[in-house]
């Protein structure tokens, strides 16, 4: 009974696993292979295997672009945490209609295309946009924020804020109110209760949210391309141009491999961290 049940379950799982194998595992495996060809716009790919396309990533402009990308995603993560934590607290204490409306406000942007939201920021930040025209209407000098790192940071923060709020709220929702009452009953001040009980219990949500936001903003393309342009080139923008402008597939593949490995390391580290934490909390 149990064996045949398992066999059926395996069969049911197979189509979905096949999709992951064919559309994710094979393509990513191929990228690893393409990265080992000699760099340059050569077709058909031949020669190697060698690591020259990885070595090419060590020369300009890649290191500075990688640093800017890292800086942007770290700052994004900090900003969404600072903005998101009070919101998550407020949300986890809201009930009924207020909670449903807040959830709609948080979830709706996630269902909109990132291009549409980036377009909205272009309309706001451009010299001829809402900010620029408002300044002009007030006879103040026009300021255009479009095509700056600040614009990228702002739009990245907006696009990842919902994820952080939801991740933190998921942790905060699980806090047993009795625990807070107990801390208070034992004489802890509300500040002490907050820092000694609420913040540590929100950490798993923070780790999950922060790793997602870090990896997501490292991999973002639409926001930096539309709001930063050539003024704030990011690593993924370089990959895109290597493919579509210089036709240098080996270098594009090598850069992709670097990004994938870095993202996996971040996500893996976060998973380890949360497992260690929960092991410590529950003493297993």
């Amino acid at each position: 009974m149990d064996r045949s049940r398992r066999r059926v379950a395996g069969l049911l799982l197979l189509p979905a696993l096949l999709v992951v194998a064919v559309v994710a595992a094979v393509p990513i495996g191929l990228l690893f292979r393409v990265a080992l060809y000699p760099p340059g716009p050569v077709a058909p790919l031949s020669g190697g295997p060698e690591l020259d396309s990885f070595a090419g990533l060590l020369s300009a402009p890649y290191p500075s672009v990688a640093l800017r990308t890292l800086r942007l995603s770290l700052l994004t993560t900090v900003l969404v945490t600072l903005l998101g934590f009070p919101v998550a607290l407020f949300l986890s204490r809201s009930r009924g209609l207020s909670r449903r409306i807040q959830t709609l406000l948080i979830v709706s942007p996630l269902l909109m295309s990132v291009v549409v939201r980036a377009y909205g920021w272009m309309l706001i930040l451009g010299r001829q946009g809402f900010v620029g025209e408002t300044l002009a209407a007030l006879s103040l000098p026009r300021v255009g924020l479009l095509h700056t790192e600040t614009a990228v940071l702002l739009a990245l923060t907006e696009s990842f804020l919902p994820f952080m709020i939801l991740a933190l709220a998921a942790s905060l929702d699980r806090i047993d109110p009795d625990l807070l009452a107990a801390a208070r009953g034992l004489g802890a001040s509300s500040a002490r209760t907050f820092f000694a009980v609420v913040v540590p219990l929100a950490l798993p949500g923070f780790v999950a949210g922060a790793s997602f936001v870090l990896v997501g903003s490292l991999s973002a393309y639409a926001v930096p391309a539309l709001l930063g342009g050539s003024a704030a080139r990011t690593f993924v923008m370089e990959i895109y141009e290597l493919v579509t402008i210089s036709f240098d597939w080996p270098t594009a593949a090598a850069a992709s491999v670097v990004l994938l490995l870095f993202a996996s390391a971040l996500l893996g580290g976060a998973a380890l961290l949360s497992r260690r934490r929960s092991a410590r909390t529950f003493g297993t």
Partner: protein
Amino acid sequence: MAMRIALGAAAAVAYAVLLLAPLAVIVYSVSPGAALEIPPSGVSLRWYAGLADQPRLISGLFTSLLLGGIATGAALVTGIPAALALTRGSLPGREAFLAVLLSPLSLPGLVLGLGVLTSAAVLANATGIRTAGTLLPLVAAHLLITIPWVVRSVAASLESTDPALEDQARSLGAGPFATLFLVTLPSARAGIVAGAVSAFVISFGNFALSLLLASGRTVTLPVAIYETVDRYQDPTVAAVSTLTIAAAVGAAVLTDRISGPLRTRDASSRSGRQADPAAPEPAR
């Protein structure tokens, strides 16, 4: 109380930030002229009528609707069995399978697109089967990222229904298929509909994954919007973007109504039940 007001103020700021970009698009879509005016001199729907003269946007809209439909159908066909296997199959390594199925969500979209593009090129070289320029690579890629939404939503739904009901149906003489179609699947209806809505919306709005795979007739709406906003100041793009914003909000309301990600969380979280005003307020 002061704490609650401060939290509410912080939440209001965050929600305003989330609303800004879509609002800018909506306001620009009804502006009378191509240039943005502050204060606006009137309201006009001419850009919505003008959509008919934008073949690229219209064709993008239809491509995205078609692609979303196919991807959602395929994601349901592969994702529902997978969710059944994960919740009812008593499989060893259930968590690992789930992690594999959800992993495409954390892959950088553009990198994955490059991988699929490379695979299509390798396939064409090896067998002469050309998929470039057809919908097939896009369908495969979108299927990959929509399956997780179906699996997650249907599995959550199945987990909250009582398997004992199925045992009763079996003991009353229903065959496995009758039980599946008359008891199990109907009881997971809310999860199936919510999963289908999310899958469609995710495919419809996807940009990074589609960018390298879309060309000519297979350019999707987000890619068409991206190519247009970068070059022209044209409220027609804002008009079509507003339609997608309305669709996203509609989808968010719909999922809230049918499955209520919130309502289920409210009901299952310990604090949800105790949400009466008399309950002690935590951590103030």
